[in-house]
């Protein structure tokens, strides 16, 4: 029984990590229908930026964290401005190929600078975070992941539901010409969605680094795991991304715990294929509203 609870809790926090990673992906897809293959790259940049600032420059953790977020937010803006904006009006496939190119560019650049080694952050989590309950012990990293995930998902939910800027962003995703007619600055919305996506990606990259340590290959490849998550939840649903993340996280830890650790890496993709067969739009995919 203890083993079971242990697995549930690790699965949940892993799930929050995936949800956080998927959130940025969904955001770009929602506002501009672009599948962002560079998402893993953005995660890796965030993770390494934090490494440089915290371990190498030895800044205080909170400052390093803040600077990483600001840096990746700006990076999102820059990517949109210099790579995506010239492609507005071109076919979608060109934009998607561009993100793929961007991914390899980022990965190559990071490999060039950091090599394929495994790095780890300084141990900054306070020991009180480690959680004991009966015979169950959950290490601080998982508790931290859980808390960070919860805070940021809450913040984003709030931003999109209640803030004016969030509502403008949703209006562009909904009906672009109508939003334009009302004076919504569509290009600014695109830029903002890339910036926010890069910020969330960096965040999930850092969390991943706290759990596993960071390695260029590993962090950027986890961007690939975003696909089963978002397809399970529905490509354009933020709530779906959260739930999809949690389901995939639990699925992985349960498979790893009870069946075989070898199967663990494969199970999300098996799930992905089954979901596509049964519910092609995902659990919360957009159901077209049609009045008859």
């Amino acid at each position, binding site marked *: 029984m203890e083993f079971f609870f242990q697995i549930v809790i690790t699965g949940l926090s892993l799930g929050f990590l995936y949800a956080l990673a998927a959130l940025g992906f969904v955001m770009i897809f929602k506002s501009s229908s672009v599948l962002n293959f560079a998402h893993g790259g953005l995660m890796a940049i965030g993770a390494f930026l934090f490494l440089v600032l915290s371990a190498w420059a030895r800044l205080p953790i909170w400052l390093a964290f803040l600077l990483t977020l600001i840096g990746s937010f700006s990076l999102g803006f820059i990517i949109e401005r210099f790579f995506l904006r010239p492609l507005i009006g071109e076919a979608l496939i060109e934009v998607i190929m561009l993100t793929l190119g961007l991914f390899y560019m980022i990965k190559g650049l990071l490999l060039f600078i950091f090599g394929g080694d495994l790095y780890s952050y300084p141990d900054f989590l306070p020991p009180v975070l480690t959680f004991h309950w009966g015979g169950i012990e959950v290490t601080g990293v998982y508790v931290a992941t859980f808390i960070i995930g919860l805070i940021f998902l809450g913040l984003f939910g709030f931003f999109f539901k209640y803030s004016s800027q969030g509502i403008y962003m949703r209006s562009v995703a909904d009906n672009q010409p109508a939003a334009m007619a*009302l004076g919504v600055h569509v290009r600014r919305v695109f830029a903002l969605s890339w910036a926010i996506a890069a910020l969330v990606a960096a965040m999930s990259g850092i969390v991943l680094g706290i759990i596993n340590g960071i390695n260029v290959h590993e962090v950027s490849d986890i961007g690939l795991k975003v696909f089963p998550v978002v397809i399970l939840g529905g490509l354009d649903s933020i709530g779906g991304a959260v739930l999809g993340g949690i389901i995939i996280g639990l699925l992985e830890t349960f498979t790893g715990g009870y069946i075989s650790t070898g199967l663990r890496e494969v199970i999300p993709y098996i799930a992905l294929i089954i979901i596509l067969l049964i519910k092609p739009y995902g659990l919360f995919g957009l159901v077209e509203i049609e009045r008859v």
Partner: protein
Amino acid sequence: MENNLLLQINNISVVYSDVIQILKAVSMDVRKSQIVSLLGSNGAGKTTTLKAISGLLKPENGKVTEGTIDYGGHNVQNSAPETITRLGIIQVMEGRQAFKYLTVEENLRVGTATRWGKPYKKDLEMVYHYFAPLVARKSSLAGYCSGGELQMLVIGRALMAQPRLLLLDEPSLGLAPLLVKEIFEIIKRINEEQGTTLMLVEQNANMALQIAHFGYVMENGKIVLEGDAKDLRENPDVKEFYLGVAASGTIKSYKDVKAYKRRKRWL
């Protein structure tokens, strides 16, 4: 320029995709606090005229190639919609383009995009005051609203931007006659109480000429007739072609070949 002129269109031509000419030398004057209606058959260029004013030609690859659009001292032809909306020109597009996956109130809040960060509670109250049926639907998704509610919603949403010039494209499209009457009455009240200048594109010429002060009739991308609304209502050609009443006062039949010939003369 006269003092009470809000918008002056001088001889504009509009071309789509560099080859398809839709408007040919169109000129119009819109006076402050008036309702100007724009009549004409399908494909006459009414919507294109509105889009030329609001800047929405651009995303459709259209361009004002000649002439100027003068709005309170600004030359707005070929400006971006973000700029034009911030000058106070808001277009309500044809076909009730609500944001389907946003609630009614969120839809209205998008109307504040031109003045982000400013308080909007008063404007919400004003919109709910004009369009009472929206209050009950406040928090339901716009995609599930009826056609009449959607039309009220998109007009209300435009009002949230506090427009000086409101461009309405076929507000009566596909609505029941009673509802059309209600909406036109509200449009008239908005004009009288808020002092908003309106340009109204309509197929329902009868309704449009009843509330308008001035009217233009378009054919094939040109203006063929203009005048005070009450004069247009009495004009035998307008009566016959747009109000569906023959000179004698009976309903006209398509069998009448003469009518067809007379219409040709306008082109």
